[in-house]
C-alpha cells in the first residue's frame, strides 16, 4: 500500500545530510513550511544551500535556520523584507553566500529543473548587473540570457490538503513556489493541514499530482510566522 505519510516532521527530515540543496516554498510567510523548517533546525544538518524566494523574518522559520548557522548559501530573489534581521546581518559579515536571481527566472529555473530542461534563454536581466558572466544569445534580433535549470536534493513545501498518494491542493497565494519545487527535488516533503482519504480530492482539482511528492507530514494547526515574529519568538 502506498502511504507517504511520515510519523512526524522530525522523522521526515531525519535523512537530510550536511551539504544538501533544499528548496523551501513560500512567499514571505504564505506557504512557508514552518514546522518542517523547525524540524530541520532540530535535526541540525549544516552547510546547506537553500533555494527560496526570501530569507525569512524575525527569528523563526527560515530565519531561524539561517541564524542557527546551517545555511552556507541562499539562492533567492528578495533577501530583505520588513522584519528580516538575520540574513542581512550574516551577509554583511560575509558569513553567508547569496545568489540573487530575478523572481521569474528563479521560478523558471525550478520549473525547468523539474521538467528535465537543463537550461533555457530568458529576456529578464539583459543589460543589467545580473547578466554578468552569463552566456547571451540573440533570437529574432532580441537578446536573451542563458539560465540553468535548478534541481534540489529536497523540497520542503506546505500545502492545504493531501491524500496518502501525495496529491495536493494549496490555499490561495500560499501556492506560490510549492508545485514547481515538488517537481524539482529528489525528495519532496510536504506539510499539509488536512489529510483526506484517497478519492477525497476531485482529480480535476489536484494541483500537484502525487508522483511529485515523497513524504507527507500532517500539521493540522500550523504556526503563523507573523504571529510568532510579533510575539518575539526565537526558535529553537
Amino acid at each position, binding site marked *: 500500500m502506498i502511504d507517504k505519510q511520515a510519523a512526524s516532521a522530525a522523522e521526515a527530515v531525519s535523512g537530510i545530510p550536511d551539504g544538501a540543496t533544499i528548496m523551501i516554498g513560500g*512567499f*514571505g*510567510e*504564505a*506557504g512557508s513550511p514552518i514546522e518542517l523548517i523547525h524540524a530541520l533546525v532540530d535535526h541540525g544538518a549544516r552547510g546547506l544551500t537553500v533555494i527560496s*524566494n526570501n530569507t525569512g523574518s524575525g527569528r523563526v522559520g527560515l530565519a531561524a535556520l539561517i541564524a542557527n548557522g546551517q545555511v552556507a548559501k541562499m539562492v533567492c*530573489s*528578495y*533577501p*530583505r*523584507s*520588513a522584519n528580516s534581521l538575520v*540574513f*542581512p546581518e550574516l*551577509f*554583511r559579515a560575509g558569513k553567508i553566500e*547569496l545568489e*540573487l*536571481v*530575478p*523572481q*521569474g*527566472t*528563479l*521560478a*523558471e529555473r*525550478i*520549473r525547468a529543473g523539474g521538467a528535465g530542461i537543463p537550461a533555457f534563454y*530568458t*529576456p*529578464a*536581466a*539583459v*543589460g*543589467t*548587473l*545580473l547578466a554578468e558572466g552569463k552566456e547571451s544569445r540573440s533570437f529574432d534580433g532580441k537578446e536573451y540570457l542563458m539560465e540553468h535549470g535548478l534541481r534540489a536534493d529536497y523540497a520542503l513545501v506546505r500545502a492545504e490538503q493531501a491524500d496518502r498518494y501525495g496529491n495536493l491542493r*494549496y*490555499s*490561495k*497565494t*500560499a*501556492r*506560490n*513556489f*510549492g*508545485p*514547481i519545487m515538488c517537481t524539482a527535488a529528489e525528495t519532496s516533503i510536504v506539510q499539509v493541514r488536512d489529510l483526506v482519504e484517497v478519492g477525497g480530492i476531485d482529480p480535476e482539482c489536484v*494541483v500537484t499530482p502525487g508522483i511529485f511528492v515523497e513524504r507527507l507530514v500532517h500539521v493540522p494547526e500550523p504556526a*503563523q*510566522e*507573523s504571529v510568532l515574529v510579533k510575539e518575539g519568538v526565537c526558535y529553537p
Partner: protein
Amino acid sequence: MSELKKPTAGWSRQEIARRVALDIPDGAYVNLGIGMPELVAHYVPEGREFIFQTENGLLGMGPAPAPGTEDPELINAGKKPVTAIPGAAYFHHGDSFTMIRGGHIDICVLGAMQVSASGDLANWSTGDADAIPAVGGAMDLVAGVKSIWVVSQHTTKKGEPKIVSECTFPLTGKGVVDRIYTNLAVIDVAPEGLTVTELAPGVTMEEVREKTGTQLIDGREAREPAAPSSKQ
C-alpha cells in the same frame, strides 16, 4: 524665495494614480508595483473593468480586506493582505511568470529611482556596497509586460532629477519604459526623445525642464489633436 513654501503645483500621489488609471483601457490585465503604483487600483474609471495580477499567484486581486478579516495566505507581492474578486484565479509561480514574461500582461505600473532618456529603468538598487541586493520580479516584469509605465515624483527628496540622460544606479532593464507619470507631467519615451504630452495643473514647461536631467520635447499639441468638443 526658495525658503517660502508656495502651495505646491502639480499632482499629488493620489492624482498621479488617478491620471494613470484614466489611460488604462477597459479589459486590461495590469500588474501594479509596490508603493505608489498600488494606488492606481483605487481609481478604476466608471464603466471600465481592469484585472489586477499580482506575481505571487493571483489574477483578480481586489482591495484590502476589512480589518479583522485578513488572511495570511492571501497577500500581494508587497506581502500585504488583499482580497480576491469573484472570477479570480490562483496559480503557481511558474504560471505567474508565464503570464508576465510571455507577454500576456498588458500594463505594468512601477516605481523608479531613475529613468533615462532612452527608457532605461533603475528601481532595485542604489549600488551601495552595504545594501542587501534584492530584485524580486522587477526584471522579469520589464522584460515581458507589453507596456511599462513608471510613476514617480519628478525629483528626489533632495531635488535631484530622477529623469536623467543616463542612469547612474544599476539598471532593472534597458530601454523598457514606455511612459512616465510624475507630479509635474506625463512624458512618453519616444524614439525621437522624451516627449512631454501633458503638464499637471499650474506647472510650466520651463519648470519641468529645470527639474529634468535631460532634454525634453514639448509634444503637447501633437498629443492633443483638436478633439471634438461641445464647447467651442
